[in-house]
């Protein structure tokens, strides 16, 4: 449809999502943002958080711990490291990712940025559980 943006979510394993949507909420590395039609071309990173694709009254929610976003010509491509449907928010793999982040935090030599990103992963996963 001409009025919409086309959202495509790809991971190294598969094309996870490919649909026309009205807007997409992402948690960019410098703050959350919602992308509508005719947004300026954009490349940014994601930190851990939800991705909400809104189409009409429907909203699909996903979760990822990080990735890259490219938007141009009303085509939004999201490259994700990992991808969880709303039905998978309680899965074992998320617990593993959280433990992984905790392990990284226990290493004293990592940079402030990494501390921030890993804390974000833990917070967000805890949020999903509640």
């Amino acid at each position: 449809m001409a009025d919409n943006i086309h959202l495509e979510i790809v991971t190294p394993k598969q094309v996870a999502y490919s649909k026309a949507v009205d807007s997409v909420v992402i948690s960019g590395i410098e703050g959350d943002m919602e992308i509508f039609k005719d947004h300026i071309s954009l490349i940014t990173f994601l930190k851990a958080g939800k991705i909400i694709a809104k189409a009409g009254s429907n909203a699909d929610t996903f979760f990822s711990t990080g990735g890259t976003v490219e938007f141009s010509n009303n085509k939004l491509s999201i490259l994700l490291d990992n991808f969880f449907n709303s039905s998978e928010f309680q899965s074992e793999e998320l617990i593993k990712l959280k433990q992984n982040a905790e392990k990284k935090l226990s290493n004293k030599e990592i940079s402030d940025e990494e501390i921030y990103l890993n804390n974000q992963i833990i917070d967000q996963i805890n949020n999903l559980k509640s």
Partner: protein
Amino acid sequence: MASLKFLRNRISSVKSTQKITKAMKMVAAAKLRKAQQNAENARPYSEKLNSIISNLKNSVTDMDSAPKLLVGNQRNETHLCVVLSSDRGLCGGFNTNICRKAKVFFEKILSEKKNLKIIVVGSKANDQLKRKYNQYIIDRISLKDEKVVSFGKAQEITDKILNLFTRNEFDICTLFYNQFKSVISQIPQAQQLIPVSIEQKSNQQSLSSNSEYEYEPDENDILENLLPKNIATQIYTAFLENQASEQGSRMTAMDNATRNAGDLIAKLTINYNRTRQAVITKELIEIISGAESL
């Protein structure tokens, strides 16, 4: 002429070999389908990543401050070669092809008096290369404990490579793997990982690269984050291609072996029947001539 018993044993042994190769062919065919699927699923991701990076590369104007991974460290002294192979044999020329390709490259580097470092992935490349190039091999990675190569494994190898690069242990990194074309054709490939070489694709893409992008954070930060990811993705794709190639190669090899075993059985059976007939005739002659002499 060989004895009847010998021929009988021979036929039954070839028959059981044929059963094994037939089963291996079936297994390889099933695994190939899965491996091919995996390789196809991974393609959009690496293509997208590639197009983002080539867009970024065009917008980087100041080459001096650009990330090292993109432009290299301006030297061409030490080469690191990563050779991907399989852990199991019985797959035709699969491992030999990739090693042959790598060896040609090694010889070229050595004849130019440059330094050579090798990382072998999979035990078969190690077996083939260690005789001649043992002193150059700096790391051996086995895939034995992994059924399907995970992205994590590719990431692990990438981290190793990046570690070496930041310590200035090599200048140029090349990856050797088999590209899957079809079941009967796998092409050994040499791909330069560092500095990044990105093939320029159709005009359409260069058009979109003209559009102004908003970067958040700025270009160089994004590049610095994306390039390692790109290397991991490339290695991962190479893994998947390699795996599909291995199964394809094994399938053809085992198909050939099964056919050859069939031919051999036919030949041996004719031989066996002739020998049996000859023995019967001989016995008859003996009986008849014995009866006549009475």
